[in-house]
């Protein structure tokens, strides 16, 4: 093999971490699909296979305390942020040891400890939420960013357009990542969109919008690293369109007859993000076959254990029905890993009290507003 002309900007450790996380998602989803066919998982189950780079690149590029949320194809992000795989699997199984005690299921994974604020089942419903979380960061003068995932079809919802307008006008530190896997369920995005290149829509709101190769973990990493710096510098939101591909159907119930076998095969063989990253590392001598094989063995064992944990876990108690609808006075929030595994969770989000907090930010600085009034001949 030829020596690379330019040294890689990545460390071996970085590449192996990315590989491990992508492989974890792949393996987890394969086993979830298998458990679905065995009847252990029911309802809707949307697998992330093929899209791993879209989750892992960005997660490696931001801080652990940055906020993140997604739609209903939501197993990948929390796993890559450090969620307990067994507890995610248990949620899919509808067991009491799941992150949401089995109340949410596949579409509603929440791991607040790792700042993953949920999977949402109404297309585009999480887009305004992300702007609000970013608003809170500015309100409290924090330099946190919010990363929000949504599918290509969500870009045709009013929520998307209403939110981009506000996010840009108020310069909110939010990165919107459109996971364009080309199909909104079974409908090709080009069949329902006047402008199928989603990133172009940012220009209507005077915000940054860029396409990214969503099948390349390092390209996703670079795009989000840059976008996060932009957001933290107070320059406003960014829309990234990750062009990606799901190797499986929309959900476990979808045989995907609306796309050709050739198309799927071509993406699988030429564009799979996992071998792609491995090839890059090998080429740059930042990992040997043995390293990758060791990771794979390790992850397989981790996922086997996750399935076993889920399968052996009890269903939630029926008394659980009456919890978590209304917050009673003095009631604390549930910390899942404390509740299930008995470990001490130390990085649970803490917010300043209403007496400690000083709001120094101005959405529309008064001087500016007064000057505009003066110019227009208005008195205040």
């Amino acid at each position, binding site marked *: 093999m030829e020596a690379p002309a330019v040294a890689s900007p990545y460390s071996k450790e970085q590449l192996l971490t990315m590989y491990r996380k992508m492989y974890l998602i792949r393996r987890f989803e394969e086993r979830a699909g298998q458990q679905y066919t065995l009847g252990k998982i029911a309802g809707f189950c949307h697998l992330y296979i093929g899209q791993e780079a879209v989750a892992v690149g960005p997660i490696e590029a931001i801080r652990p305390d940055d906020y993140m949320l997604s739609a209903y194809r939501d197993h990948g992000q929390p796993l890559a942020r450090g969620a307990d795989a067994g507890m995610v699997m248990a949620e899919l199984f509808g067991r009491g040891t799941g992150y949401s005690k089995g109340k949410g299921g596949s579409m509603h994974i929440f791991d607040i400890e790792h700042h993953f604020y949920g999977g949402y089942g109404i297309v585009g419903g999480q887009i305004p939420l992300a702007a609000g979380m970013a608003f809170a960061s500015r309100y409290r003068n924090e330099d946190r960013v919010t990363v929000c995932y949504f599918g290509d079809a969500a870009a045709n919802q009013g929520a998307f357009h209403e*939110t981009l307008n506000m996010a840009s006008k108020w310069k909110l530190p939010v990165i919107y990542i459109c996971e364009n896997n080309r199909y909104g369920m079974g409908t090709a995005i080009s069949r329902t969109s006047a402008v199928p290149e989603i990133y172009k829509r940012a220009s209507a709101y005077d915000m940054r919008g860029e396409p990214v190769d969503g099948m390349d973990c390092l390209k996703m990493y670079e795009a989000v690293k840059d976008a996060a710096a932009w957001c933290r510098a107070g320059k406003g939101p960014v829309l990234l369109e990750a062009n990606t591909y799901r190797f499986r159907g929309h959900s476990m119930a979808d045989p995907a007859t609306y796309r050709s076998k050739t198309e799927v095969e071509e993406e699988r063989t030429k564009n799979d993000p996992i071998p792609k990253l491995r090839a890059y590392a090998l080429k740059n001598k930042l990992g040997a076959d043995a390293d990758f094989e060791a990771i794979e063995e390790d992850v397989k064992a981790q996922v086997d254990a996750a399935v076993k944990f889920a399968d052996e876990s009890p269903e939630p108690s029926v008394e659980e029905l009456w919890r978590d609808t209304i917050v009673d006075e003095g009631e604390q929030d549930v910390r899942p890993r404390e509740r299930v595994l008995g470990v001490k969770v130390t990085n649970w989000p803490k917010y300043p009290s209403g007496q400690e907090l000083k709001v120094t930010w101005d959405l529309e600085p008064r001087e500016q507003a007064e000057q505009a009034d003066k110019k227009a001949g208005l008195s205040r």
Partner: protein
Amino acid sequence: MPELMYREALNQALAEEMERDANVFLIGEEVGRYNGAFKVSQGLLDKFGSARIIDAPISELGFTGMSVGAAMVGLRPVVEMMTWNFAILAMDQIVNNAAKLRHMSGGQLRCPIVFRGPGGAGGRLSSQHSQALEANYAHFPGLKVIAPATPADAKGMLKAAIRDENPVIMFEGERLYALKGEVPEGEHVVPLGKADVKREGTDVTIITWSRMYYFCMEAAEQLAQEGISAEVLDLRTLRPLDEEAILASVRKTNRVIIVEEGWALAGVGASVVDIIQSKAFDDLDAPVERVTGLDVNMSYAANLENATQPDATKIIAAVKKVLYREGA
């Protein structure tokens, strides 16, 4: 005790709570520079600045969802709906997100947020602007729904709603904003979920909330002149319903009418009837009567608009029916 307009009482509650807690902010259409479509937020922009009194674009779904997101990470938004008719556009965020976050997250998240604005008929505004929609929201677990009638309750319940750890839906009224009443100064907090006997009586119970309260009081005055003693129970909170207060009054008077501005089918009153028939059947001396908005859309013409809504005359007729004094 100072006398304030309903809108001034709300303004006082907002100002006091924003003073008390920097996490509280107000967002909505026209709440800032314009000082509020109904002047509820008069003077607040000058006092608290543009990060805490936010003029939103006309994107009800968008700014409602944004506020829910802010509440998920520790802020306490108050979202002003210019009217609840427009909030239908935002219902996805209220119902699918705010009401379900605690549940979907298995108790990891909470959503302390208030959605408030006028409901019911405003006067000569036709069908799209004249709906009493509280029954819609009262249907959903995960929400609290309040509809205070008096300025004092408006202040005390808004303060309680802002301090509550759950999403609270607050129905005010275009025709309530200018009404005056005594309002306690400072720390006046009215607990949610508690009905209030606004007028004691022995012959019949009139159960109501929001603007209909005033018609009920008017009816009760007139009935008193005929020797009929009517008790007026103001529910104030529609979710959760104060069953204890409802049943206590029914057991005292044995006759009940329920007055509701909204439509009869699947109305809040229907649920109150259900509570009464299942838990106080033997205490009833007559079937429960309901006075509701007619089962039609609201018209612009003054005579049609008036005929569509409950009024004191209709209430008096219903009272006489449960007292078997029809035609008396």
